[in-house]
């Protein structure tokens, strides 16, 4: 299935857009999404462990399932608030 994933900050510069479409297996997980992302964009593969993934506006572990209707996003390391 093809899922749409929101991109922010550094991730947006890598993918070149607000959203990216990724192919993941039906009944796939965040882990599958990461694998698909790393193949499509090597820059992500190099630092995958520093990127979080959110599903429906909650941070998700790798074993969490994803489906076409979910709101998915790539969350690079954050820097809100102030130093």
């Amino acid at each position, binding site marked *: 299935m093809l899922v749409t994933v*929101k991109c*922010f*900050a*550094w991730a947006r510069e890598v993918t070149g857009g607000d959203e990216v479409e990724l192919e993941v297996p039906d009944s796939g997980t965040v882990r599958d999404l990461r694998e698909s992302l790393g193949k499509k964009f090597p820059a992500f593969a190099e630092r995958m*462990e*520093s*990127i*979080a*993934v*959110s599903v429906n*506006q909650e*941070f*998700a*572990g790798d074993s969490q399932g994803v489906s076409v209707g979910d709101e998915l*996003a790539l*969350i*690079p*390391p*954050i*820097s*809100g*608030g*102030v*130093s």
Partner: protein
Amino acid sequence: MICRIVETPVDMDTLIGDVAEDDIGGVCTFIGLVRNHSRGQRVTHLEYHAYPEMSEKKMRQVIEEISERFGVDRIAMEHRIGTLQIGEIAVGIAAASAHRDASFKACRYAIDRIKQIVPIWKKEFGEDGAVWVEECSVDAETA
């Protein structure tokens, strides 16, 4: 209680007024400003970006955590996004309580936790170009 991402200047009086009631004895606030230096480099301005819907959701989570931990319910917070100049307010927090100890603890927890779990990013513009500041990788287990 105010809890939002804004594109306009943060007004502390609005946040303080939002939490101060007649039974309140102390309000602790924290104001995060854009500094003119960072990591040894001169900063000219910043750009804050956010995942706005999720940011507001996670800010509400921070407020709920504070209520559970410190029994403080009167909290307001705003985080500004867009281009900010040196000296402008990026984030404002106000925490009110009958007694001062709880208001300090609540406000301190709020700013620490915002930095951990609210999806906001900043890009620093300086003499040597622009860079995304990446301070905290989110840990899905504790976020």
